[in-house]
């Protein structure tokens, strides 16, 4: 999921240059703007459709659903 994974390094530096760098600045992703909430509800619905029509696997579904539910929790905790 993250930007700076092996693939990225491979593309930039070529295979021989394996290295670990740059902190996980993408953790910021977990920040949720309030306006996104409707979008998250819609996204949950979409995911199920994608699973039903076989676009994503059960595992992918569970992983994505989990991250959306977590974001919704972030929103809910801010509202209470």
């Amino acid at each position, binding site marked *: 999921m993250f930007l700076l994974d092996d693939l990225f390094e491979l593309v930039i530096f070529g295979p021989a240059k394996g290295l670990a760098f*740059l902190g996980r600045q993408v953790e910021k992703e977990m920040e949720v703007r309030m306006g996104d909430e409707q979008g998250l509800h819609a996204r949950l619905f979409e995911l199920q459709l994608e699973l039903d029509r076989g*676009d994503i696997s059960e595992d992918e579904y569970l992983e994505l659903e989990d991250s959306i539910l977590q974001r*919704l929790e972030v929103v809910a905790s801010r509202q209470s």
Partner: protein
Amino acid sequence: MRQESLATYVYAIIGGEEPVGRIRTTIRGLEEAEVETVPYRSIAAVVSKAPLECKVRREMVLAHQKVLEQLMGRYTVLPVRYGSRTSDEADLVEEVLRPREAELHTLVARMRGKAEFGLRGFYRKELVFREVVEDNPVIRRLRDKIAQLPPEQGHRERVRVGEMVQSALGARKERDAEKIMRVLGAIFSEHKINAAYGDENLLNASFLLDREQETEFDAWLARLEERLAPTIGLKCVGPMPPFNFVCLTIQTKSSHVSPR
């Protein structure tokens, strides 16, 4: 379990060509409970009995979704957020349906014959990273410089390249998303753009389409896909209830409904 210890879980507000009436459906909702309607004049709430305390979890999402799917073909559906409950039916009528009937009726009329379609644009990762590097002479030069250094050196330069690539990718996302929306947004005016998540995702948009518009929308998507391939792929999901356009919130006690 005694009746009093249960809440009324609300899935949707529906309306039809004619008033819906009180229906005990064959649909099974949360915890296999029977789904029924609570009608009020021209509209009706779709509900089932549910525990007072329940968090939004997988089982809830699934049950909620299945109920909405079964309603969609038959009625105009205004989706209610996952996890919405009132203390009982009387509360639902007195605090939501009666005071908001006119507003909900208008919303039902506005959504009649329409459905939401989600559109996501995503990059093929290996292609976009290569393109970002190739398109940017500064990044390219820095990369070539690092390639000359022994592996134990150049840590700072590497971090810098990483940051530069990330920011170049961000800018590129904006441009590409705009390119797509310039075409689709102009033709299909009822749309909303949501935040994109992750590196591959460049666009998350929702469109509210009339039944008759669907074919045209598909045709435009096909044209765009052809132009954007192979670096960008598009994925369209729908039809679904108009979550991004009318998502109703119903809360227990101080129950209120708020569109948008």
